[in-house]
């Protein structure tokens, strides 16, 4: 089923641009809706994936412009100026990655962990977190920074191992 197999991957793709998970999901759904509406007129020979990614890419850049978050230079550095190739799920390393990330999050100090989880996994904005925990937005900001720094260090080690594994695997 088209929707079910591509939805998650496309959400990740959109998320790379808009950095707001709810917005990303909505954009992807709208893209599927557009696709459905135009089903009579689109070229069946072209892969549907690329059609969807085109639509989503446009919607994402529009979203960024509307929210005054569009910067060509930064997008270029993130490699998001053109439509990048949509990647499929990589189940071989997914499990390991998930464990590594969970472990790294567990290592965060209590408050820091809580704030990080609320932001990344419950999709709460800084202000919402501040209100809920009765702390200042500045505190949320500082804790988020610390969390991301910690994740960077923990995951960079992982990345090196992962790459060695991939190389070995490809060499077999």
């Amino acid at each position, binding site marked *: *089923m088209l929707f079910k197999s591509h939805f998650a991957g496309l959400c990740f793709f959109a998320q790379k641009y808009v950095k707001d998970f709810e917005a990303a999901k909505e954009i992807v759904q709208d893209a599927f*809706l557009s696709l459905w509406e135009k089903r009579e007129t689109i070229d069946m020979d072209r892969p549907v994936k690329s059609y969807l990614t085109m639509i989503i890419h446009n919607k994402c850049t529009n979203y960024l412009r509307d929210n005054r978050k569009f910067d060509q230079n930064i997008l270029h550095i993130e490699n998001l100026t053109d439509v990048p190739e949509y990647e499929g799920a990589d189940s071989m390393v997914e499990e390991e990655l998930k464990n590594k990330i969970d472990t790294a999050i567990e290592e965060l100090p209590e408050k820091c962990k809580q704030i990080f989880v609320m932001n990344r996994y419950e999709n709460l904005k800084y202000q919402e977190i501040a209100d809920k925990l009765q702390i200042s937005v500045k505190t949320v900001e500082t804790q988020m920074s610390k969390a991301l720094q910690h994740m960077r260090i923990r995951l960079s080690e992982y990345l090196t191992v992962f790459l060695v594994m991939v190389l070995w695997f490809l060499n077999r």
Partner: protein
Amino acid sequence: MNDNATYYTDLITRYFAGEIGEDELRQLSDWLAASPENEKFFKQYHKTWLLIEKQKVNSAIDIEKDWNAFQSKLNALPETGKAPKVISLNTNQPKIRTPFFTLQRVAAVAIILVSTFLLYFYFSKPSEIVVTAQADNIEHVLPDGSVVSLHAGSQLTYPEEFTSKTRNVKLKGEAYFKVTHDPEKPFIVASGDARVEVLGTEFNVNTSSAEGNMEVVLTTGKVSVYYKEKPSENVLLLPGEKAELIASQKFIRKQTNSDPNYMAWKTRVLVFDDETLDQVVKTLQNVYRKSIILTNDQLSECRVTASFNDQSLESVLEVLKQTLELQVQKDGENITISGNGCN
């Protein structure tokens, strides 16, 4: 510098959290354009964030729930009266076994390998260490065993490990180097565009002179001094020789070193042999890092013959006071010397 790092780390985190404001976005953009270091820093966080988000998206999506939500939106569309059925779009293209297809595979593998290598090097490049001597001289051992003595107020930057083809360090201020011999890997001291290249030797580098000029004095061994844009116009120094680098003209002048006290900041041994007081004061300023001013010109002509072994500035000034009938006034960090001149 540290404040800046925190500020931009916060900014970058806000960016990925989707919290960034319009002005901040521009700030971030400018900062990223300002140097490749900044860009690299940003990219590390970007990759980290991507890893986290990818995993999150995979677990956060309850595909049945989202499919149902989608279906209701589909039903809400005006024109559609049909029940949503499996969209008959050809997503499973037959695998075309043509040479082109194989080429695609090879290209994909090549891309993975290349980006793998790039990512690997991103994360495994040795980080830089900065050593600063504050009020005292510092001795520091570098990863290859070389010893550097940093004059108070100087700063040395070097990598955690000398992994490239040369051993590169950056100097601000003055330092004395005892470089371990390694013919495979030249040791290079950089200050601005100037370079001092050695194979194994002992020498003094002073970058703190007035007009941004630099002085290198060789104790033992052999040293090559050049500007990075013209490495062929290098000056070779032998022990006892001094190279003076004029920054404004990128010109290097070689001469025999006439100043026996070039290393006094480190050894605390001062030797004056019929030196003018002017010269003595210059040396004292460099060694003890205090500002010393002669109030009248006649004083500069006074001659001094004396040696001091590990004495404090006060002791030295006492001796000079007695010998030359001077008055010494101290005012915080500034010292003024006055007198009637010598004859």
